[in-house]
């Protein structure tokens, strides 16, 4: 465990609020608008953290626990997630199972918080969220198993260190495509969900947090930005960045790759429409097939 390994969590917490703004600015560029100022993410958080709360009478402590648990899960995920082939602070064999299950725990509490309001909209969003997770989780674990087999290690940090040093191009491409779909789905982006929609019936993630406000909403927004970052780091590690000298330059390159992924997301959101809800499972199974093909490649 070196000092450099602690840079990534701090960097993630500080820079994550930039990501949604970056995506919005790319979308604005495509639409011929100017988009929000760069600091909008931070301004929103500052505003939300200073507001008084308002909650539904139906709710209990489960409703208030949801955003906090989700945020704590992402904080814990940062402890095992490496960036730019720089080891994470607390790596161990099998840490990627913990990563997948931490995302699951955050989702479980987000969903229960939504159901706590008794709203039919939020129930609908929660139902969709758990449905998509059923298809996304095996895809993620199979993809990570492919990486583990390729690098013959069981922890994310050595996996990504090994991948930075070498690894097959076809595997990188297959998993890059698979993980990109998972990134879009888990972060509720087009073509699975539209964070900018204004109609409750069509929302998935946004509808689950309709009743949250103030500090809770602040943690939700910061948490969503962190999730973009963590899953972005999962994708960024597939790029061959190991040739760079020194951990700092590799960290910078990794952060740059996460920003590039956000720009890609903005482009996808600008040029594609959402797929029908009934087709989302097919999209996710497709991502799973890409990951499984990657795993198959390592068996040659």
């Amino acid at each position, binding site marked *: 465990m070196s000092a450099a390994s602690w840079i990534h969590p701090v960097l993630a917490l500080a820079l994550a609020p930039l990501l949604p703004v970056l995506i919005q600015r790319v979308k604005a560029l495509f639409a011929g608008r100017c988009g929000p100022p760069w600091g909008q993410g931070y301004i929103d958080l500052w505003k939300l953290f200073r507001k*008084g*709360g308002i909650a*539904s*009478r139906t709710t209990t402590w489960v409703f*208030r626990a949801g955003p906090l648990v989700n945020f704590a899960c992402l904080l814990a995920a940062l402890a095992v997630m490496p960036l730019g082939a720089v080891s994470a602070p607390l790596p*161990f064999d099998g*840490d990627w199972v913990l990563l997948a299950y931490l995302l*699951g725990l955050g989702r479980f509490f987000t969903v229960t918080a939504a159901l706590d309001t008794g709203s039919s909209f939020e129930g609908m969003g929660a139902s969709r969220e758990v449905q998509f997770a059923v298809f996304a989780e095996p895809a993620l674990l199979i993809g990570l198993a492919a990486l583990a087999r390729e690098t013959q290690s069981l922890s994310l940090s050595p996996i990504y260190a090994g991948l930075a040093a070498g690894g097959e191009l076809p595997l990188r491409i297959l998993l890059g495509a698979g993980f990109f779909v998972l990134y879009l789905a888990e972060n509720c982006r087009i073509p699975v969900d539209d964070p900018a929609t204004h109609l409750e019936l069509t929302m998935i993630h946004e509808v689950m947090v309709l009743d949250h406000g103030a500090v809770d909403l602040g943690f939700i927004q910061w948490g969503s930005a962190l999730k973009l970052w963590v899953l972005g780091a999962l994708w960024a590690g597939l790029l061959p960045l190991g040739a760079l000298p020194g951990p700092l330059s590799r960290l910078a390159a990794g952060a740059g790759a996460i920003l590039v992924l956000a720009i890609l997301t903005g482009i996808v959101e600008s040029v594609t429409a959402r797929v029908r809800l009934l087709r989302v499972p097919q999209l996710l199974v497709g991502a799973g097939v890409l990951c499984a093909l990657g795993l198959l490649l390592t068996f040659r």
Partner: protein
Amino acid sequence: MPLEGIYLFGLLAGALALLAASGVGSLLAGRWSERGAVAIGAGGAGVACVAGLAAAVGALLRRVDLTVARPWRMPYGEFRLGLDPLSAFFLIPLFLLSGLAALYAIGYFRPWKGRNPGRFWLFYNGLVASMALVVAARNGVLFLAAWETMTIASFFLVIFDETDSRSAHAGWIYLVATHLGTALLIGLFVWLGRGAGSQDFGTYAAPAGMAGGLFVLGLAGFGTKAGLYPLHVWLPEAHPAAPSPVSAVMSGVMIKTGLYGIVRLLVILGTVPGWCAWLVLGIGAASGILGVLFALAQHDLKRLLAYHSVENIGIIALGIGLGMLGVHTGMPALAALGFAGGLLHVLNHAIFKGLLFFGAGAVAHATGTRDIEQLGGGMKRMPWTGAAFLIGSAAICGLPPFNGFISEFLIYMGAFKAILGSGPAALGGVTVLTALALIGGLAAACFAKAFGIVFLGEPRSAAASAAREVGASMRVPMAVLAGLCLAIGLLAGAGLRAMDPVVAMLTGLPSSVAAPGAGRVLMPAALFGVLALLLGGLLLLAVLRRRLLAGRANRETVTWDCGYAAPAASMQYTATGFAQPLTQAAEGILRPRVESQLPQGVYPASGAYHADTPDVARRMLFDPLFRAAAKRLGRLRWLQQGRVHWYVFYLVAVLVLLLGWALRA
């Protein structure tokens, strides 16, 4: 050590004797005083379970391994009892959950006035004693006798509520299914004992080349009790019908005696062919995935939980299958991880499933219904039960930092070891990985539904809104189990060492830590560091939230419903609706019976949707099978004259035939 072992053994024997005595004593006392009967029955069970638990934990920590034999006037029978790490390990959840369930039962049966509670305690204490005897028996005849006592006692507990006609039907299905399993087991023990000429477990020897056949026989016989797919059909009928403390014990520990049988058979046989491991893996994956899929489609809270038992038995089978694969392919790390994960899940499942059945029982106790669609808002009315059920739900989904995660993590690690290797073992690893990931997602969906619809939102019926928190005798067991879910999740790193002798028995390794590479994986200290970080972070965030909101206006209002200011409870999402996208996707497997009335016209006045999902294995496989059997066997009905002298004649005729057969030589 040997002296210590004798003391612990004596403690266990004393617990068994106390259980038997207090059961009978409670029945007798019930003629005069209901309170006296409860005091004797529950008190005896409680003291015996504490003593038994102490003996089991002591024996496991001290690595006791001894056998005690007394002659028994029964052909081939001998009162041979043993206490070794494997038995001690299975006795721990058995006594733990049975003791807590006894405490829970005191509160649960309080409204049942005017009926002799001794009847319950006789069968309950008999069930606990016979389960312990099954785990401790070292003689085939004694084992079968204990096995049968366990079946009969649990049958009477299933049909205990005589006001419910469905429980009689469920009990009947249970009795038939479990006796078919026992028939296979009699065949197994006869076959095993033939070569040795004795029913002593120690002298059993599998005939050459027959180990595979014997294992399949045992897997089917024990698998019926364990609830492995497709032999699980009795389970979703019997568990909901039984009173909740009994459901908890049946689901938490009684079905584990089936797993104990499978594992003990592995120890007896020593080596089994490689295809047996694949069979266990396949059945485990099928049980796991189909169990959780059917659970997702249920509306009866206890039936839903019963299907989750099928799922968790599947997860345990996946672990055991991986362990067998590791032994077969000579990968000690894989063997140790698979067996350790599977066995730890036995303990963990007893804890969280017991907790969930207690919670479901508390809800049924408070509202009078188990129909999820009639419930809601339980968290406000029953905060203790709600919090305990939430912890149990997270634990059963395998979410960190609870105990379910630890055992699933070990099985995952076994799967990775297999995947990193080469050859066919890697295929087994991929199977387990995919199955576990799929099960995890589906279980989370199912428990988001079960917890969310029952405990959150607004009550969906008058009964649900009138619910009140249950008494202390029902709350304390739930609190203890919820605490154990968290404690095992956080402290397993230290506790796993105690399992080494158990795993060593199965893998043939001196100790699982001695296996190259296994010791490092069994206890990744950083894992517990991250879990501590998770909890610490959560605590910090909660404090931060409180500080940020302090001194500001905090208001309450109605839930957002597009500006509609009079939301009603009936507008909430239903359990059927919540699970519908997934049950629809799995329609081909679940084959639900849907009754729907689509909205008609421009201003639709009504619409309805109801989906019922009976068990497919029962509908497609067992019902036709039993109907055909009934048709064929119906031709023998003329034998049943209903007159006693005919039956006496049958008896005499059979006796004469047997005499002739015996004298033929």
